[in-house]
């Protein structure tokens, strides 16, 4: 057993790992290349044929930052100040004055507005119960409940934004909470500013809508099915979906015409193949998340739209249905709704998720104001045993059955799978009562053409810089330089591999980081090669010089890279978006370059001198 065998294995394993992580990026690129020359029907057919592959590779590839692919980045802030102002009752001059001071104070500090408010009250020796809670409550209790409200408002704001972005249908949106009261939304490829503003800032619309009668809904869906079957648009993947359906239920699919094989079923019932209906839950259709776009396209067709009655709408569930979804396959529900809303959410005054004291099951209670209560009593009285959907911004969060007439405005909603689901419903119902006021405080958009220019100049400068460096190294250090160049190539492959594994985003400063990594990687080898030359000059054998060179250079390489790494960490902490991308590539680059420049070159030198007894020329 030679002593370099295990080291060589480590090198091969890391290359294989990097290749494994990079493959989706390559595949994504080549699929894009295949689509590019296709138009209209052809490209659509290609997309449907390769849908799964495309989606899979897209989620695993190295993502391009907004500055490279174009798109919009918006930072929203939930206005806590406005919220606590809205929550107060009996507002008088003193209160207005205090709010003004708190507003001033928030400009210079990061402390929570609620805490600032409390201090102002204490300064003036006014009890908070004058404006909040009930008279008997002490400040601690009111403070806690206000902080709680503020926290919930942010969750609500985030949920509203997420829901809307989901409905808007942007590919790969990113929604993140930033600090205490901010939400960052990144929308790649979107540039319509007015639309986005509307999307993110408009008041959330909560509605209660009746579900259509299941029989009517089934009739309409059958009609759609017939239209699709007769127009002869059968796509090749439908049979596959039908097969998976068949596999999960029974081997054959039972239909009124008798039992059909999956292929026959897909041909005869193109709509029911993707939108599955079940006896157990009449009136709903289940659509696998992969098929959602397909069904959306079907419902958008002119002839299909004509088949849907004027007062009816198909509306999606906001989240995948818990009952039928599993970890790898998620199903959304398509509900047939009556178009006009019975009631809008403005009448909801409060909502709360709890566990039912009798049964221990999660429930949500909802209160309405007096106008709402009256309407609600009429609506529920007239629709006993029918279902009413709770719709926020055109997505359904729940569709409970009305058990009895609800008078007095106090309703109780049951049937949630778990407490999380109940909490989500609470958030949704409150969105009608207490809209979380969000403001856009930062908005950046990059047009796609600037992104393309940036990629082009980024790639051009990378290629030139790499070529110059590689040639210089060979020129100056001969064989030693060539080995260093091999290390540079390894370093780049590892860097990209790690980026892909982290599913990191490559930004324009990130490309600069890649180029700088090149320089760092070269530096390590310059240090080593210079040392080897020095040692060799003292008369040591080549083998001894190499060993000593690596040993002596190591502390310098380690310390100098670690200090650069420190500035990388700080950069990552401080920066936003593109700058973080730079910091991340720089840090990963330092690690991969140390591995490539120190470990891999050593293995190569060892093999060259031991296995092939070569005389290595260090120039």
């Amino acid at each position: 057993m030679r002593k370099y065998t295990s080291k060589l294995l480590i090198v091969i394993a890391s290359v294989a790992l990097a290749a494994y992580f990079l493959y989706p990026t390559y595949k994504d690129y080549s699929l894009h290349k295949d689509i590019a020359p296709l138009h209209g029907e052809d490209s659509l057919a290609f997309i449907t044929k390769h849908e799964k592959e495309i989606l899979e590779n897209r989620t695993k590839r190295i993502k391009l930052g907004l500055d490279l692919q174009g798109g919009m980045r918006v930072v929203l802030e939930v206005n806590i100040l406005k919220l606590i102002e809205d929550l107060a009752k009996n507002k008088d001059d003193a209160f207005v004055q205090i709010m003004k001071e708190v507003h001033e104070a928030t400009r210079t500090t990061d402390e929570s507005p609620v805490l600032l408010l409390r201090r102002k009250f204490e300064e003036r020796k006014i009890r908070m119960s004058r404006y909040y809670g009930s008279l008997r409550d002490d400040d601690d209790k009111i403070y806690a409940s206000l902080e709680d409200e503020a926290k919930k408002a942010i969750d609500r704001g985030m949920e509203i934004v997420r829901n809307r972005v989901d409905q808007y249908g942007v590919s790969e949106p990113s929604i993140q909470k930033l600090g205490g009261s901010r939400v960052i939304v990144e929308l790649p490829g979107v540039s319509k500013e007015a639309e986005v503003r509307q999307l993110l800032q408009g008041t959330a619309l909560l509605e209660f809508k009746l579900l259509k009668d299941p029989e009517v809904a089934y009739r309409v869906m059958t009609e759609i099915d017939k239209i699709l079957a007769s127009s002869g648009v059968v796509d090749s993947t439908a049979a596959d979906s039908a097969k998976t359906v068949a596999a999960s239920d029974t081997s054959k699919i039972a239909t009124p015409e008798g039992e059909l094989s999956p292929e026959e079923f897909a041909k005869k019932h193109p709509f029911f193949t993707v939108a599955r209906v079940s006896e157990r839950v009449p009136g709903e259709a289940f659509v696998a998340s992969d098929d959602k776009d397909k069904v959306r396209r079907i419902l958008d067709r002119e002839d299909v739209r004509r088949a849907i009655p004027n007062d009816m709408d198909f509306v999606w569930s906001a989240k995948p249905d818990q009952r039928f979804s599993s970890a790898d396959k998620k199903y959304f529900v398509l509900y047939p709704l009556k178009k006009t809303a019975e009631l809008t959410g403005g009448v909801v005054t409060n909502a709360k998720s709890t566990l039912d004291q009798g049964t221990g099951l999660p429930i949500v209670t909802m209160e309405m104001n007096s106008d709402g209560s009256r309407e609600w009593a009429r609506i529920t009285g007239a629709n006993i045993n029918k279902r009413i959907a709770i719709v926020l911004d055109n997505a359904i969060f729940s569709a409970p059955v009305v058990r009895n007439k609800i008078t007095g405005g106090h309703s109780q909603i049951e049937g949630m799978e778990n407490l999380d689901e109940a909490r989500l419903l609470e958030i949704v119902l409150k969105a009608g009562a207490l809209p979380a006021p969000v403001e856009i405080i930062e908005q950046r958009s990059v047009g796609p053409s600037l992104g393309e220019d940036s990629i082009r100049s980024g790639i051009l400068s990378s290629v030139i810089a790499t070529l110059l460096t590689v040639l210089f190294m060979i020129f100056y250090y001969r064989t030693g330089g060539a080995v260093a160049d091999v290390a540079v190539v390894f370093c780049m492959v590892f860097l990209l591999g790690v980026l892909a594994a982290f599913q990191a985003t490559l930004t324009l400063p990130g490309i600069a980081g890649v180029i700088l990594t090149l320089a760092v990687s070269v530096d390590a080898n310059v240090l080593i090669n210079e040392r080897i030359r020095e040692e060799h000059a003292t008369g040591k054998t080549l083998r001894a010089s190499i060993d000593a060179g690596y040993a002596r250079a190591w502390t310098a390489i380690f310390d100098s890279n670690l200090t650069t790494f420190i500035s990388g960490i700080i950069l990552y902490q401080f920066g936003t978006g593109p700058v973080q991308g730079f910091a991340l590539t720089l840090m990963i680059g330092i690690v991969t370059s140390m591995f490539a420049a120190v470990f891999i070159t050593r293995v190569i030198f060892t093999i060259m001198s031991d296995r092939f007894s070569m005389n290595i020329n260090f120039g």
Partner: protein
Amino acid sequence: MRFFKKTSIDFMSRRRVWYAVSSLVILAGFISLAVKGFDLGIDFLGGTELIVEFSQPAPIGDVRTALERAGVTRAEIKAYGSDRNILIRAATVATVEGVAVGDRLREGLKAGFQDNPFHVLKEDKIGPKIGAELRRDAIYAIIASLVAISLYVAVRFKFAYGVGAIVSLLHDVLVTLAFVSICDGFLNLEIDQNMIAAFLTLVGTSINDTVVIFDRIRENQRIFKTMPLVDLMNKSINECLSRTFITNGSIFMVLLVILVFGGEVLRGFAFALTIGAVTGTYSTVYIASAIVLEMAQRTKAKTVMA
């Protein structure tokens, strides 16, 4: 191939001359900053910034007239890379006569350049609160990195080396700032987030170079225990000279490539790093090592006097 044979240059004896040179450059930078002020970018100023590309060259004067006609006065207008690309910046994100400034700017350009269509390359709107926060964070980030790095050096080497590191890093930041301020105008060298990233990176690469020399001094100190520090330093710097030139030469070359071919967005970033590569190399010898030497000589003088 070797650029340097065994050298024995006496670097340290000429250090006082270089203190003066460094001070002069930094002074020139301060004067330039006092006269020109900081050319802060949209990130730190807040406001609305639009970068548009016209299909034909658009004179800046015409752009100004068109915008003034649309009711946007006092906008900053300058060429961005070429005479077809124009950067327009208004100090506010608010609305002008009920229309958002961004839309107002677009309308104004559309009306003023009817036969010269344009498209928007980039649009940023930064609220005043964010601008102030980013400004504060940037200063914190630079200070934090200086302190963290110096602490690391002080722990890994000796306290004096940590002091040498922080002074030389501060020197590099100030010299680069001086060049950025002086050359702004010929090039678009606004201080924005990318520029701050460049400053933090040059701090990283500069310390990288310093640590390599410190490491050599540390090593030689163990071998030549009785050699005076001045000679040790000269010896170490000479031994590392080849590496210093090869590494920093290739970094310089790489940065020059980004500066020339990297496009307008990266220009300021690459410029600051290029200056940083030069001053970082220089400051290793004449600031970081020199300070360590001065401090050592001072403590020695004290012990002699006592």
